[in-house]
């Protein structure tokens, strides 16, 4: 399989990186703005600010009133949204192709100058706190990721959850918000991606028109302090939650994105779990009826990573047995040759997933952004599939050795609250 997308790359004088990819299949465009700021840039006592700030970006800018962003996109027949992660904050809209200039006007106006008031900020704090309750506090197993990060990434900016803490969120002031914007929402700290049906020269001229005179008011602080400890031997945690089925999380420390191990980690995840022919699914769910589900989640970020194996069990008395089965399976992968069919299966899955990721202008833009940010070039999107296809037994064993075999594990158990 070959993926061969054509990317045109430019950098404006103010440092804004521009990536264009034409795709005339449908009369649509997707504009994506990625800002290189996320929860990793938050200071202690201000956890959750990057995400709260994402909300403030929809609260009006110099020339767009408070509900104006959503209303303008809606009037233009488009859809828009945004998300915040540890490393990046991303804003995107998909619109009919004739509406490109509207999208550029909206995005450039909020990069240029926001309009933050006490009232809007107070309102969005309240919205974000309800979001936190809905998605995490009031949700079964909703605090699991928080506990994993806290334990794995101890001592680094990744140790706090992206959603943050209630007191920190409430402490964010209008002045701090303006300062945050000046520091991180500058052209030099962002990437603009345009995918879809447009005429290149016209699009470039419009981008220059709207973004060319935006100044960099301040630059982000350099990040350091991503050194973190290996997992200690006795590290485990039991959490009582309002749940029916107990869950076990076995967490392993992994490398950051961009290292050679990440592609084989994906293989290991799929060999072990995540589909019905995987080894752990067959043993735990199908043959032994010990678990309702098992999945392996690699969470790899710019400066570090974790891989966790989550099993949802029918009975907490089986924690030990399930753990042993998982560890035995990891050892088996390591010691015995993995047969070619099993490896071919993963390659077919990856090929299909890569092709699927190209079906909409939005997913092409988002994939392009991730390649640019994590691998330094959009062209990596064309090479990624090839990376997966060149994984063999030996690569998998090397990664098992680095991440899983005889490594200390952070073990976390979620058990039903006593009534």
């Amino acid at each position, binding site marked *: 399989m070959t993926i061969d997308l054509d990317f045109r790359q430019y950098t404006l004088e103010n440092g804004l990186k521009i990536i264009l990819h034409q795709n005339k299949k449908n009369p649509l465009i997707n504009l994506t703005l990625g800002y290189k700021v996320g929860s990793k840039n938050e200071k202690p006592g201000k956890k959750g600010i990057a995400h709260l700030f994402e909300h403030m970006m929809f609260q009006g800018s110099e020339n767009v009133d408070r509900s104006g962003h959503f209303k303008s996109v809606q009037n233009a027949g488009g859809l828009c949204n945004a998300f915040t992660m540890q490393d990046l904050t991303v804003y995107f809209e998909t619109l009919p192709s004739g509406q490109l200039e509207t999208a*550029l006007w909206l995005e450039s106006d909020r990069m240029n100058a926001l309009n933050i008031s006490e009232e809007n900020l107070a309102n969005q704090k309240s919205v974000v706190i309800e979001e936190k309750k809905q998605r995490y506090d009031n949700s079964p197993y909703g605090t699991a990721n928080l506990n994993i990060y806290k334990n794995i990434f101890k001592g680094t900016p990744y140790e706090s959850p992206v959603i943050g803490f209630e007191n920190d969120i409430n402490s964010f002031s209008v002045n701090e918000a303006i300062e945050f914007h000046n520091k991180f929402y500058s052209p030099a700290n962002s990437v603009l991606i345009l995918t879809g049906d447009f005429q290149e020269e016209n699009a470039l001229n419009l981008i220059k*028109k709207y973004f060319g005179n935006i100044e960099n008011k301040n630059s982000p602080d350099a990040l350091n302090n991503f050194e973190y400890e290996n997992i200690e031997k006795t590290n485990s945690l039991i959490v009582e939650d309002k749940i029916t089925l107990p869950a076990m999380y076995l967490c392993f420390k992994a490398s950051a994105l961009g290292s050679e191990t990440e592609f084989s980690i994906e293989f290991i995840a799929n060999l072990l779990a995540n589909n019905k022919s995987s080894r752990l699914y067959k043993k735990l*769910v199908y043959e032994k009826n010990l678990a309702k589900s098992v999945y392996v989640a690699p969470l790899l970020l710019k400066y570090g990573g974790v891989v966790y194996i989550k099993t949802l069990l029918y009975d907490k008395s089986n924690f030990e047995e399930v753990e042993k089965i998982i560890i035995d399976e990891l050892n088996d992968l390591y010691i015995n040759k993995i047969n070619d069919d099993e490896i071919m299966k993963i390659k077919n899955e990856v090929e299909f997933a890569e092709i699927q990721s190209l079906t909409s202008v939005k997913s092409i833009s988002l994939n392009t952004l991730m390649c640019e940010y994590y691998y330094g070039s959009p062209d990596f999107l064309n090479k990624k599939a090839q990376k997966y296809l060149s994984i063999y037994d030996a690569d998998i064993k090397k990664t098992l050795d680095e991440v899983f075999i005889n490594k200390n594990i952070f073990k976390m158990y979620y058990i039903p609250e006593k009534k």
Partner: protein
Amino acid sequence: MEFNNDLNFYDLDRSKPPKSKHSKDVPFPEFFESKSSNGIDVIVIEDNSLPVISVRFVFKAGSYFDEGKTGLSSFVTDMLSKGTDEMTATEIAEKIDYYGATLSYGTDSDANFISIYTLEKYFDKVFNIVSSILNKPSFKEEEIERLRIQKVNSIKSMKDESDYLSNRAFKSRVYGDSPYAMPVEGLTDSVSKINRDDIYEYYVNNFTPSNLIVAFVGNISPEIAMTYIENNFGSQSTVDIAEIKNAFSFKPIVTPEVLIVNKKDAVQSSLKIGQLSVSRKEADFFPVYIMNNILGGSFTSRINYNLREKNGFTYGARSYFEFNKFAGDFSVETEVKTGITAAAISEILKELNVMRNEFVTDEELTSMKNYITGNFPLQLETPNSIASKVISLKLYDLENDFYSRYISNVNKVTKEQIKDAAV
């Protein structure tokens, strides 16, 4: 490459929104449709831009035909891939995964779905698997027991979610003694009682050619698609299904009622406020659709604006119509701070009253029409999303030109019709 352009600076006035250019009109794409010799509805949307093919099998049955055995329809659908006369459950999973394909299935109140999605190069092999699953399921006792454990535990753990509890209470009150009142996946008691005879009987009566719609999407021609259908499904005899009788009567709630489900220590209240509505076919779709989008069906809607952007009660609030084949419901859903539950309810009721008693503004109506018509091409971006629309025409017996007249019908809707739709 460096951006090197010495054009003079544009005169830019940020205070003025740019004039939008007229968007290209996008007609609803043509699709192939035909019937097999034994009555299967076949739809093909050929798209050769990527080397993938999906096929969806939709049986017009669903949990409406559970006949008192709540959860049966869903149980049968889930059992299909758990072994056939030719392959065990594990062999099916291994083959599907080996080809990198996906096999998915599900049930709702009016239909049972099975679909495959695969690389074009493995299409033949994957199609043969799904053919075996649909034609020769073995329903082994051992697999039935295994699935039962999973389903019962799944239903138990759904009760951990407060929106499941509020939804359940709402449906059972609104839909009375009809199957729409019951959760599609069933209840722990009812699922515990389902046996092999029930499963087999449901399968024989409902997974029939005359109940079936098949939609092919992707790298495949109509001729080849029809050949696959005839060769794999064409020999099944057409079963005359009994005339579908709408045996259940649906009664609207006359005086307002409040149902409370207590969930200890919950930090939010999950609200669901609504009423019985009409079926998909009876609905005056366009006024209803626009009215709901203005009321609570979009981010900029009145209810979301009021509860989230004005009051900060919630992360989000929405309203929607759930249209089933024989009846429907309308509801507003949100999760709010526990302390302001009463205030949130009264704001929702206020918005419902305003919508019932006053006209929407011209600006609201124009903006929503712009959105719905402008957004139409986005909904046609992928061949799979086109297929979903075509399937819905068949499933709910709608006019075939529903989507080709969509934009003109949206533009015709008046403020008066919207007010009527809010009753």
